[in-house]
């Protein structure tokens, strides 16, 4: 049995299945599954592919998310290409493993379909699950639709496994808004994938013919150089990420800016800054507001780690007001809203033309951000622009007039 890939075609699938398809096209060797909504559908799709004989992989139903990530770590350390994933509290049950995996420089790939933590633990999407792991040395970014999810998974493997990078990747998509919304996805020709994604080859796997020791006990004075090396790997991934996005565009014909997508920002005064699926509603709302003469645009961050500080500064310095749509909890944080605000303001600190910045707590609990709320937030930004200062740092959208 070997993995079987069909001809290039367009299919109607949701984000979960798109992620599973990408894992199949990447011909993964080991899959570590554990059920939690909403990402479960990805593992269901992969289980069926293995059962059908379309994908030759070891499909392991783990006993917990902690075990999922340990299985992924062990398999990746042995030289296998690995796929795993989770949502919500499951992402956190595995938390211990994130630093060891990036520290041993194993390019494990993890699919995340965001879900709120407990409470409220509802099935809706909040980015807090993945964002809480943001400083663990994983490459991380959000897709806003199924096609982009498929593409990000393929690019994730290529970037993470690049010998200049060797870092694990969290390929995130909003639960339900992407994971369970069906849309058209172009599945590539197997030849294109073969050209783009060479087989995984770690330089120092656990191989009895070339014995190595992974992860020995480290004395305090030996720690700093190892930490610096990991930090450099993260920094050093930035040119590789750009190079690989360029190559992806050449081979597959879909071009993404690796860091930031701008929508109707050319002459904009005020812009939204967000990640993930709410950008889709946002674009619609902006078109509508543009028709009414508001100079509003949208900036969508595509890669959160490594964080494109300079790019964020350059882009956002063009505007008068920035409204950060959080979709995450940063309890007691800088803005007392979400954690994205501090990332934005940190990037803008060195700018000589700092815009005003709002933190908008919207989409919390996985609620959709409806058009009316986009209009309301735009109104707040326009008022701030007129006034020359913000009314207050953080707005809980839907709780104020």
């Amino acid at each position, binding site marked *: 049995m070997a993995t079987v890939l069909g001809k290039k075609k367009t299919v109607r699938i949701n984000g979960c299945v798109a992620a599973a398809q990408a894992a199949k096209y990447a011909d993964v060797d080991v899959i570590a599954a554990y059920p939690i909504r909403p990402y479960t559908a990805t593992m269901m799709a992969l289980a069926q592919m293995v059962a059908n004989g379309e994908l030759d992989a070891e499909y392991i139903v783990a006993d917990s998310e902690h075990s999922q990530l*340990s299985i992924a770590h062990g398999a990746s350390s042995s*030289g*296998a290409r690995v796929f795993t994933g989770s949502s919500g509290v499951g992402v956190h049950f595995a938390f211990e*493993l994130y630093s060891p995996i990036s520290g041993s420089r194993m390019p494990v790939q993890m699919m995340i379909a965001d879900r709120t933590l407990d409470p409220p633990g509802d099935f809706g999407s909040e980015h807090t699950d993945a964002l809480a792991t943001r400083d663990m040395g994983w490459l991380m970014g959000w897709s806003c639709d199924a096609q982009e999810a498929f593409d990000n998974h393929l690019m994730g493997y290529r970037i993470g496994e690049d010998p200049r990078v060797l870092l694990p990747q969290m390929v995130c998509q909003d639960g339900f808004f992407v994971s369970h919304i069906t849309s058209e996805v172009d599945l590539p020709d197997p030849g294109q994938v073969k050209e783009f994604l060479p087989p995984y080859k770690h330089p120092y796997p*656990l191989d009895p013919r070339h*014995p190595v020791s992974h992860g020995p006990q480290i004395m305090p004075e030996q720690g700093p150089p190892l930490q610096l090396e990991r930090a450099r790997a993260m920094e050093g991934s930035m040119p590789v990420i750009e190079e690989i996005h360029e190559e992806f565009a050449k081979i597959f014909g879909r071009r993404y800016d690796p860091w930031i997508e701008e929508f109707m920002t050319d002459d904009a005064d005020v812009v939204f800054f967000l990640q993930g699926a709410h950008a889709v509603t946002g674009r619609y709302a902006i078109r509508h507001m543009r028709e009414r003469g508001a100079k509003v645009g949208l900036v969508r961050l595509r890669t959160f780690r490594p964080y494109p500080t300079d790019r964020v500064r350059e882009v956002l310095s063009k505007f008068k007001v920035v409204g950060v749509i959080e979709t995450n909890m940063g309890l007691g944080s800088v803005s007392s809203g979400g954690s994205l605000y501090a990332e934005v303001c940190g990037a803008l600190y060195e700018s000589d033309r700092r815009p005003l910045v709002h933190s908008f707590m919207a989409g919390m609990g996985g609620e959709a951000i409806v058009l009316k709320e986009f209009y309301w937030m735009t109104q707040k930004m326009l008022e701030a622009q007129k006034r020359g200062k913000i009314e207050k740092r953080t707005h809980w959208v839907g709780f104020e007039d």
Partner: protein
Amino acid sequence: MPAIEVQRQMLPLLNSPNQGARFYNPDLPETEPFVPGHRTCAGCGPSIQYRMTSKASGDNTILVGPTGCMYVANSSYLCTPYNVPWAHTQIGSAGSFTAGVAAAYEAMIRKGKWKGAYPNIICEAGDGSASDIGLASISGALYRNHDCLIICYDNEQYANTGIQASSRTPYGGMTTFSPPGPMIPEAKKLFPKDLARMMAAGHPHCYVATASVGYPIDLMNKVRKGLNHKGAAYLMVYTPCQKGFVYETPRSIDLGRLVVECGLYPMWEWNPEQREFDYSFRPASMRPVSEYLKLQGRFGHLQAEHIATLQRFANQQWHMMGVELPEPLIRAADAKNLAAMASAEAAAVVAQTV
């Protein structure tokens, strides 16, 4: 491309006239996957076990070391004692990391990405990892039947962190988390988790056995049986800890025999084909538990009634093994026939001053 069949190793069993030649045995493999120069204590039971185990498995081996004393004391950065691939994993990841290595080799060999015979994949988990924090991960690996051997090197405590009680610490055992005192004169009140039998009962398709560093050839043969068994195997090995048990350094192997001879560590195998326990192992002699206890400082506080409690526990184990109890052991289970440890009174005085 058709799937490539996975070739597996078959290791021959060693001959031993008495289930445990004590010193040199001409059959011993020459290979040393675990070399000297590490930082374990003199007489360290777990590292003696490590050497025997890896000798038995040979060079086509991958070792997995969850956090524990065999991680911290062995694997100093840039200076590890392993001549075969070795990887650290988290203390709760013993079974899962090992499962990942096993799954990777199954897939890579089948898909033609790695060529060679399937390696011996061995996890060396301490009893804290195996009986507490990593229990579910090990159970998962056994249940899913990955072709690997999971060893619990059982020194009956968390030794790496400075001697704390695990669920394998025996009744009466003093640790820093189970000290004796006026309110709790016996120190640890709970009996150890019957870990190996739990693994055999819950995963009957696996080869499961108990062993002791006191019987090296028996230990090495059980390692080889576990590795030859296609699927998961589990071995729990008594490995005394000089620091935690507080005994004279040269007595490690003696304790490894005494613990079996006094019935506190029954030696058995679970046969997965016949689905039954093999209790035929018989030590050369049977002794009262006091002979084992009196060599160790961790039991120095025990009163006669506590020793009798442990003797009753040992007698139950003999009963389980199908052994007829001799009269002296029945008498030794009654506190009237026993004396407190010589230092018990002194220990009580010290405890009052704390």
